């Protein structure tokens, strides 16, 4: 515990400027949003969201190697096959994401893809993504988005990306002392409802984490946000509260989601929630349009609202550092 203080500028996990008492540092959040178009990034450290200029961050903090450090990249919502005005060339932007990954000064050990790999669940769309991501030379862990399970309840997805998974495609694995849990919340959705995990998956999750020490850092990744971002647009998961109740004993839980095609952060106790950029097209901020569909921005601005997420774990730190960077 005492040691943690050496690394962690704010070990209590207290949020500064939290005027609404909801765990969101609005000042920091707005700063990140404002910079999102100019290659800026947001970092969550010790439960506090911080913004750093890309260059100075990459130059200093990122290079401080620590034993047990783990670096991985999250990409999301590549929507291969989409060809509407919001992005007529999703192949080019996915390739730009790969270039971005390959240019990272700290090479990630593996990638997470948080779903909507394809736009219409077509084999050739999955083939295209596989072909493009091959250039990263990294192992990739996938969870499905609703676009990946359109006509077969996810059979093709599991055959391609989750062969050894349980149930409808959920699984867990360990890397460098961090426990990763891939969840599926895009199937068996009920009329009027949100994303759903279902009782079979919840039981599995409870059992999966039972034997773990509370000091084990946990990373949960799933397509639809596991926190209620905007229920009017379906941006949330019905039974996520129950899932998170099984993770209460852990000191550090990082939840990584996609689906909403924009970056968002929230810290709640020991849980850090984060949503990633899409590599295909942006979607409007909650409630800022008639619906949550693809948003057209001027062509020269498109790559500033698409991107990747770099995640770093340093042993001794309270929370993982989550860094968004745009493709611009």
């Amino acid at each position, binding site marked *: 515990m005492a040691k943690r203080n050496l690394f962690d500028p704010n070990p209590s996990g207290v949020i500064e400027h939290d005027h609404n008492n909801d765990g969101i540092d609005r000042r920091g959040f707005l700063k990140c949003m404002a910079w999102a178009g100019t290659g800026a990034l947001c970092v969550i450290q010790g439960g506090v969201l911080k913004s750093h200029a890309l260059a100075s961050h990459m130059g200093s903090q990122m290079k401080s190697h620590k034993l047990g450090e783990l670096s991985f990249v999250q990409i999301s919502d590549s929507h291969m096959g989409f060809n509407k005005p919001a992005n007529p060339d999703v192949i080019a932007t996915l390739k730009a994401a790969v270039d971005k990954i390959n240019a990272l000064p700290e090479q990630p050990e593996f990638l997470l893809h948080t779903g909507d790999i394809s736009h219409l669940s077509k084999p050739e769309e999955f083939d295209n993504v596989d072909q493009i991501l091959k250039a990263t030379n990294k192992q990739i862990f996938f969870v499905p988005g*609703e676009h990946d399970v359109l006509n077969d309840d996810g059979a093709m997805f599991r055959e391609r990306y989750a062969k050894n998974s349980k149930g409808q495609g959920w699984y867990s694995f360990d890397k460098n002392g961090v426990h990763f849990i891939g969840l599926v919340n895009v199937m068996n959705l009920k*009329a009027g409802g949100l994303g759903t995990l279902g009782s079979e998956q919840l039981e599995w999750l409870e059992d999966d984490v039972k034997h773990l020490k509370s000091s084990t850092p946990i990373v949960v990744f799933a397509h639809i946000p596991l926190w209620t971002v905007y229920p009017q647009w379906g941006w949330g998961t019905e039974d996520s509260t129950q899932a998170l109740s099984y993770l209460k004993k852990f000191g550090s839980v990082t939840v990584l989601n996609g689906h909403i095609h924009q970056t968002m952060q929230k810290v709640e106790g020991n849980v850090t929630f984060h949503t990633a950029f899409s590599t295909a097209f942006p979607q409007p901020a909650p*409630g800022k349009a008639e619906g949550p*569909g693809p*948003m057209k921005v001027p062509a020269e601005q498109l790559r500033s609202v698409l991107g990747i997420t770099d995640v770093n774990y340093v042993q001794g730190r309270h929370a993982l550092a989550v860094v968004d960077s745009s493709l611009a």
Partner: protein
Amino acid sequence: MRRKLFFGGLVVALPLALAAVILHPTRAKSDDTKASPAEVRVDNFSFGPDTLTVPANSTVTWVNKDDVPHVIASNDGLFKSKALDTDDKYSYTFAKAGTYSYYCSIHPKMVGKVVVQ
């Protein structure tokens, strides 16, 4: 309150108009005239009309005018379309009188009704 926000286009129309000038949602540029009585337009993540009343033995056709796919599924499993891409259509014939609730099985906040008389 929240439901109203979701269904009431007017409630969100004002913030939309005030939204940043450079950012605007993609709108389907459709030259279609008004939907025929037995047609439901799927547009901007909603069904239009969200309640459609037809006589028995009517065939109802859903047409997707969005940039993303939707799936038409009855709540009780009576009918379900394949994924409908932009401009794809799906039809179902309602033989008996009754109220048939349906939704989009991948965007379950989208709900609608067909009332067969």
